[in-house]
């Protein structure tokens, strides 16, 4: 059923964008966390988005993907830690400062996170609009024969 697949596709994107939003919030909250369970400063986390078929693909769907391509939803397939080096700040009074007086702060840039947050929320809105369009088309089709 086309309309339900459309809704499923939009919903998958909403879930993915919300996961991304959670990660961004976590990154911003931990922008100054110098201690973690694994040791060392907090590392920025990012979601990996992968296009995927709605529902479990059948043999036919997998085959047709090689030919014409079928519409795909989106899925968060991994949450990766940014392995770039931590931000070093000279603050000898900080309890986690090294012998030279430098503190290793998380590799989180608030400005980058804010920009990511805006793209995530815009993408979320676009998918909400798409879902609303699906709903209104399905409702319109139900008006037939009245």
């Amino acid at each position: 059923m086309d309309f339900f697949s459309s809704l499923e596709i939009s919903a998958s994107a909403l879930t993915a964008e919300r996961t991304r939003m959670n990660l961004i919030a976590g990154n911003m909250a931990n922008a100054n966390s110098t201690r973690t369970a694994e040791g060392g400063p907090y590392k920025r986390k990012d979601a990996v988005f992968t296009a995927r078929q709605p529902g479990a693909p059948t043999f036919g769907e997998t085959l047709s993907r090689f030919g014409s391509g079928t519409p795909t939803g989106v899925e968060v397939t991994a949450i990766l830690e940014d392995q770039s080096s931590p931000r070093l700040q000279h603050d000898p009074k900080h309890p986690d400062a090294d012998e030279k007086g430098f503190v290793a702060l998380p590799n989180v840039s608030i400005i980058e996170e804010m920009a990511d947050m805006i793209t995530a929320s815009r993408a979320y809105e676009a998918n909400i609009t798409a879902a609303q369009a699906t709903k209104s088309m399905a409702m319109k089709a139900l008006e037939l024969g009245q």
Partner: protein
Amino acid sequence: MPIDKLFGTTIELVSKNLDLRAKNHMYLAGNVANAETPYYRSKTFSFEDQLKDAVRHREESAAPAVAAHPNHIPLKGSAHRIEDIEGIVDESNVNGLGRDGNGVDLEREMGRMAENQILFNASVKILAKKFEGLKYAIKGGN
């Protein structure tokens, strides 16, 4: 069958149009969903030309040379029957210019979605009016 005369012309065309617009909407929703997926290439679904050809072919000849099975290779010079049209999916072969290589132009997709929705609603309206007309005739104008 005489019933074909009643439902076979406009209603068949408009309802096929509705089906294909719903399918098109699914592709557009898929593109919007993947607006942030790295290296995703947008997919375009088109059926207008196929539908136009099928209508023209139906008008030209009463008995068109149609394939016996939808999966058969179409005969030369023959168009699909309206009910067999499945549309064509095109996947763009360029990655986007951004750093993530995503090829979705969100504004264009949303514009297409609005257009598709309006045309879908128009088709629903036409179909509803058609049924209304039939009902009016059945009731003898009452």
